[in-house]
């Protein structure tokens, strides 16, 4: 796959932001991977490493008016939408200081104040919700959009297909981002998705469908920013399919016997961070020193997040019964 030849001009600040987001996701996930192996992190954890360009490239065009819904593999979307990494790490450790006070965990990190409507433990759970947030934005006239991230697995759920239809019928400012990392758990999307591409299904709903090299930040940004701008202007939904590979298993502990050496190849040849760095330093838009400074800053931030999470208090038994209802 090749980089896109032409792209919209991004400011230095936007490029730094994009790199910072991708680096933060990578560092967060690599660190969770190592910490999970020590046995200190409970439950199910699904890592986003390898897919950073998607979350970063989409969310760069979003602002506070906009909402996103995520998947099992939600850490990257949370970070890209501005959820605090310290609170996220604490949540993953089940701490009272976590984003959800330890009641959600990795699969349910949310921050509605940031427009992040939650990672989701239900495959295909997010798209209907995003029809709702997009509807609210449309009725209130905020200019906001809703973005539903889902995987190749989620692309086969009726909820997702129903939502695409509803979004088109209601002409909602909704964007559907299919993150096709090649596998729903251990099952290949080449087998489970009957059409050649998930994006091909867009035609059936009468909306644009775009296929993007998901390792290429600039390609993602181009496609997403165009879809988001169209939605903001009342032009309705778009389906964008990212094609890439995840670097880790479906969940931490997955032996990945269903696949061969593709991760090694992707890390060496296709990696979104490496390609971004090569490109921006080659054009002179950023220097290696700019990137190194971000790497150092992020490294320290994630170190602190892990340190603080481990030291943070656990929820107490009294917390068990709170926040079921606003009032009961």
């Amino acid at each position, binding site marked *: 796959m090749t980089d896109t030849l032409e792209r919209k001009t991004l400011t230095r600040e936007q490029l730094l932001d994009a790199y910072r987001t991708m680096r933060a996701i990578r560092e967060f996930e690599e660190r969770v991977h190592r910490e999970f192996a020590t046995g200190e992190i409970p439950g199910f954890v699904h890592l986003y490493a390898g897919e950073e360009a998607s979350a970063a490239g989409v969310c760069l065009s979003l602002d506070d008016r906009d*909402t996103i*819904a995520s998947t099992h593999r939600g850490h990257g979307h949370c970070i890209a939408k501005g959820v605090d990494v310290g609170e996220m790490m604490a949540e993953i450790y089940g701490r009272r200081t*976590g*984003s*959800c*006070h*330890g*009641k*959600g965990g990795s699969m*349910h990190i*949310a*921050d*509605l*104040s940031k427009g992040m*409507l*939650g990672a*989701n*433990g*239900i495959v295909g*759970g997010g*798209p*209907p*919700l*995003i*029809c*709702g*947030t*997009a*509807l*609210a*934005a449309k*009725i*209130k006239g905020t200019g906001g959009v*809703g973005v539903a991230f889902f995987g190749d697995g989620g692309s086969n759920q*009726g*909820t997702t297909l*129903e*939502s695409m*239809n*509803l979004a088109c*019928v*209601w002409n909602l400012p909704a964007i559907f981002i299919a993150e096709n990392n090649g596998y729903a758990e251990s099952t290949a999307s080449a087998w489970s998705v009957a059409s050649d591409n998930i994006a091909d299904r867009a035609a059936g709903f009468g909306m644009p469908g775009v296929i993007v090299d998901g390792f290429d930040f600039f390609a993602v940004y181009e496609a997403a920013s165009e879809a988001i701008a169209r939605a903001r202007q009342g032009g309705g939904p778009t389906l964008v399919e990212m094609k890439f590979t995840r670097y880790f298993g479906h969940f931490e502990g997955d032996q990945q016997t269903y696949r061969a050496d593709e991760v090694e190849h992707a890390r060496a040849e296709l990696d979104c961070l490496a390609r971004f760095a090569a490109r921006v330093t080659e054009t002179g838009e950023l220097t290696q020193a700019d990137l190194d400074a971000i790497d150092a800053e992020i490294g320290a931030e994630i170190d602190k997040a892990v340190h603080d999470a481990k030291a943070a208090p656990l929820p107490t038994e009294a917390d068990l019964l*709170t*926040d*079921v*209802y*606003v*009032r*009961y």
Partner: protein
Amino acid sequence: MARNITYREALNEALTQEMERDESVIVMGEDNAGGEGAPGEHDAWGGVLGVTKGLYHKFPGRVLDTPISESAFIGAAIGAATAGMRPVAELMFVDFMGVCFDQIYNQAAKFRYMFGGKAVTPVVIRTMYGAGLRAAAQHSQCLYPLFTHIPGLKVVLPATPYDAKGMMIQAIRDNDPVIFFEHKALYDTAGPVPEESYTVPFGEANVVREGGDVTIVTLGRMVHTSLDAAAQLAASGVECEVVDLRTTSPLDEDTVLESVEGTGRVVVVDEAHPRCSIATDISALIAQKAFGALQAPIEMVNAPHTPVPFSSALEDCYIPDAQRVVNAVKTVTGWTR
């Protein structure tokens, strides 16, 4: 000022008054206006049983027809609720929960807890339930026990036009997800309803008839069946206290227990199937918390453990009637150790 209107009109009035009061209230569902995209009249139906009739023209852009796509639009209502709207979505028949329950019980019900108290999801899901219209197995069920089981949902079942209006207004203003059950055989029943806006709070049962011999705990359409039975029994000198639960979540335990303390004999009348029903739930509550007051085993009157049959000859046997309630009351009053 109160005047007699139907249960259907009471619901429509509640929706109208709340939509006038608060522009974040929107209505959506299959045929809620009716005729969208078709060559004829818009607002052709106003819902399959006419509850939302007239709202479409009064509130332009706020009454949305949907495709037959319950997962998408029930989910959309829930998503919109997290984003500042107060949607009232219609899940036409509660039997259709099978195609969209995930959005209700895994999403709406859990947001507040799962997100550490940071989410508010003020959605109302209206739905029709109950037998009696010869609508057969997939359009007649009483699935409120399934919703009652789920923490995070409120489950309400008005039995009268007065409660239909007051509870709908309460549901719309409530900040938690509310599942609002409307019995399809009650839409044409009439009763006194104030013209002005008012709320009926959740978790407050209503003693609809006082009596000292037997407590009948009931809900929904069965309130009327139980009142019929109580009137018959009064003629033979047995005075029943009839408690309309009104809401199954939250549940007003105190009113039930207080009544049982006074009578010592209990019949629970519930149109749902008997297993894991409201009848078993209330029976367990009384056995746990008022055991000492009981002078006879609790009797339950439920529909049988079968799907709802079609033929009138069968459906009439299926639905608990006043005679069965009378028989159950006679059983508890006649019981001796």
